[in-house]
């Protein structure tokens, strides 16, 4: 099983990360009841004999001794990381996995350091795929320079990431509201389930106040959970993480994937009788279920992946693809642009779930908006001096970043332009007979 290392950077990154580790542990605990350290667990956890000092304590087989997450926690403030170290997950990390500083970097650790790391990783491990889950600020973001940070980060993401799953806070917030509505509407026969993935008892972090952030982080953690499930568990149609980039990224820079999770109530700890399986597939393509504000159904698909968990067979998958295909628009050269995977282990407490990843031109508006906000600020050269103080930072960095983004937008534009045009088949090689 392919092993992966999670690098969680910044406050947001660390919060989501820890939520992910918590959920992953529960999932494995539910499946692996004998407590054997197996291939599945080894994909994201090391098994360590804590009595042995140094690196030699790793155990490759047998009983689980002490699991350590394959993770590196990075933040420039101590707060969040300290919080983790005092929480229930403290045993999953050891001190060697933590990098903190007290200097702080003013709300840009994730975007700045995180994206810088991409370049470092690329140089060091060129063969290893780099997936980035990046949270895009909403327009009402309280950090005034966030457009600058975002645009600079975008350049790094453009150049050094293999795959980016953009997520915006606004969408997460909307989804939370929807779940609340469903759960609280009382129309459905809901019961709270004792062992499911409960937001409120997620436990990784203090639960003094039920901030929407926790719920939002939980969604992202679930995204990661489903994304990696096929790498972590068995299935009749496995999908390795590297297959995602291979299948969904037709051109090196167009590696932004829109994700949607269904059914959404799997994210809540409620027992709702499953609707028809097919509904799950329909939902995945609806605007409401996207983790970014976008409407894939009315934009152009370059490629699409369906990652299914639970008791779903290949025939269900094929049937739904056939059913949904007519309503979706795929780029002319990739009319069958579907990548599918089946993981036999469903999320804890549910029968099945689906994660859809789409390489779709619908991400474009997010980028356009980002650029607009940046330009608004940049025209006035507002707050620019904060950046230019930093050694190595020059104004050209900004212009390069914005042109990189513009080029990306341009690529999407060109694809969109082909949307309504009938594309004739390109003449093939002609055999002389």
């Amino acid at each position: 099983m392919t092993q992966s290392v999670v690098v969680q950077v910044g406050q947001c990154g660390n919060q989501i990360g820890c939520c992910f580790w918590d959920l992953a542990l529960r999932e494995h605990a539910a499946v692996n009841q004998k407590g054997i350290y197996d291939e599945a667990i080894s994909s994201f956890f090391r098994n360590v004999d804590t009595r042995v000092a140094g690196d030699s304590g790793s155990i490759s087989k047998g009983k689980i001794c002490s699991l350590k997450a394959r993770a590196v926690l990075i933040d420039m403030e101590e707060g969040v990381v300290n919080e983790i170290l005092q929480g229930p997950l403290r045993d999953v990390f050891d001190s060697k996995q933590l990098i903190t500083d007290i200097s702080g970097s003013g709300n840009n650790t994730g975007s700045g350091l995180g994206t810088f790391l991409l370049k470092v990783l690329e140089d060091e491990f060129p063969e290893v795929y780099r997936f980035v889950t990046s949270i895009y600020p909403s327009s009402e973001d309280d950090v005034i320079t966030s457009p600058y940070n975002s645009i600079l980060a975008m350049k790094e993401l453009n150049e050094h990431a293999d795959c980016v799953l953009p997520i915006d806070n606004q969408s997460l917030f909307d989804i939370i509201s929807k779940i609340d509505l469903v759960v609280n509407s009382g129309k459905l026969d809901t019961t709270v389930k004792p062992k499911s993935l409960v937001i409120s008892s997620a436990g990784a972090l203090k639960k003094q106040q039920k901030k929407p952030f926790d719920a939002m982080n939980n969604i992202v953690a679930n995204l990661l959970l489903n994304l990696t499930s096929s790498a972590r568990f068995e299935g009749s149609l496995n999908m390795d993480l590297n297959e995602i980039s291979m299948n969904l990224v037709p051109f090196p820079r167009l590696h932004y994937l829109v994700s949607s999770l269904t059914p959404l109530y799997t994210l809540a700890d409620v027992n709702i009788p499953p609707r028809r399986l097919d509904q799950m597939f329909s939902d995945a393509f609806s605007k409401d279920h996207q983790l970014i504000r976008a409407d894939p159904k009315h934009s152009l698909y370059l490629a699409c992946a369906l990652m299914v968990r639970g008791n779903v067979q290949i025939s269900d998958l094929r049937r739904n693809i056939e059913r949904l295909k007519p309503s979706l628009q795929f780029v002319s050269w990739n009319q069958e642009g579907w990548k599918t995977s089946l993981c036999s282990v469903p999320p804890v407490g549910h029968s099945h779930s689906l994660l859809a990843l789409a390489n779709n031109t619908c991400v474009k508006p997010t980028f356009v908006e980002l650029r607009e906000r940046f330009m608004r600020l940049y025209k006035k050269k507002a707050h620019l001096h904060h950046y230019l103080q930093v050694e190595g930072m020059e104004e050209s960095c900004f212009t390069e970043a914005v042109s990189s983004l513009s080029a990306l937008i341009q690529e999407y534009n060109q694809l969109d332009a082909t949307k309504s045009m009938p594309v004739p088949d390109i003449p093939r090689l002609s055999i002389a007979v």
Partner: protein
Amino acid sequence: MSIVTVQLGQCGNQIGFEVFDTLFSDSHSSQGLCSKRENEAYRASCKERFFNEEENGVPIARAVLVDMEPKVINQTLSKAAQSGRWKYGQHAYFCQKQGSGNNWAYGYSVHGPRHEESIMNLIQKEVEKCDSLSGFFIIMSMAGGTGSGIGAFVTQNLQDQYAHSLKMNQIIWPYGTGEVIVQNYNSILTLSHLYRSSDALLVHENDAVHKICAKLMNIKQISFSDINQVLAHQLGSVFQPVYCAEGSFHYRRNPLGDLMENLVPHPEFKMLGVRNIPQMSENSLAYSTFTWAGLLKHLRQMLISHAKMEEGIDWQVRPPLSGLPPLGKMPLNKELHFNTSIANLVILRGKDVQSADLEGFKDPALYTSWLHPIHALNVWKTQRAFSKYEKSASLVSNSQFLVKPLDMIVGKAWNMFASKAYLHQYTKFGIEEEDFLDSFTLLEQVVASYYNL
């Protein structure tokens, strides 16, 4: 003579298991409807071909398992071991911790060369266990990355190292609607490379087998395991022992050689399709009786009308009047419905097999004009029944069966290639545009050759 099977990738390993399991169960079934002695000879023949000397009474499959991730291999090994009836060799597998990620180039240019020595050593060890080696079965998917890329690489190596041994690649043709997005690229690269290094490509289309599961086996929720079982059944029905010749009671020693000599001598025509009849769920089987005439009539119509199973055959399709050249007088659309054969192999198993009449397959109108049915039709028989079917017939056909799917794949890949989509994923690992063009050229020729039979 023995055959060494190389199972590659998830698909290859899952199917490989089912194939061995089918072969084993069938040869150990007491329902062969023949004498005990004959059954023993049948079993011995099957064993010599596919299994090694037993270890503590458990035969060991003559197979090498290769995958770039351990999950499927572990699963396969333990499934076989748990059966308690047969198993895989203790050290006959090779796996790594990183898959090829659906990238043919990664499998072919990175994994292949990197692990060449280990894999070839494993194969050699397996070969050394055979008193006599007939050839290799290489089971792989066409679209994945590991199976297809490493499969193509390994086949090429086998061609270099065992030039005289026969190589048959069992290829799984992906769903037309896609399971891997770059499947058309991977497919053309796989096919074109195999066309250079393999002797025959025995193709199973996922779509076709899927339909068989749904329509004939009555399976509601079809799993890959169901599909693989049907597939293994088809392969078993071809490669289980059959008599040497009419009236002979010796089993064929080198069926692989006989098959190839009769079906794929021409370098441009190497793609084989399999059809079999009857195929049904065990429940329905209990209430069914068959006659050879009925089975063969259906099988023939399946052949000429390009049907993938016995249900939904188009009975309107008729062979062109003999004497007329197949092209020309016929309206073009009509023409396309008729499936022209180059060569066919019909395998009959079961009761009263000697009474089966194969005149229907000897009609010259079924075949391309340049080959006489004497050269083009081969029949194998045994009265030993196969897998619970009192009578069964299989057909391995080198015909236009696959030309349309191939045309589709080449066309789609070409479209993608023309927009240069995904190419960077391949050039990253050394497969350049030139290589793609070579593949396109070769396959366009194959398509044209098949169309112009």
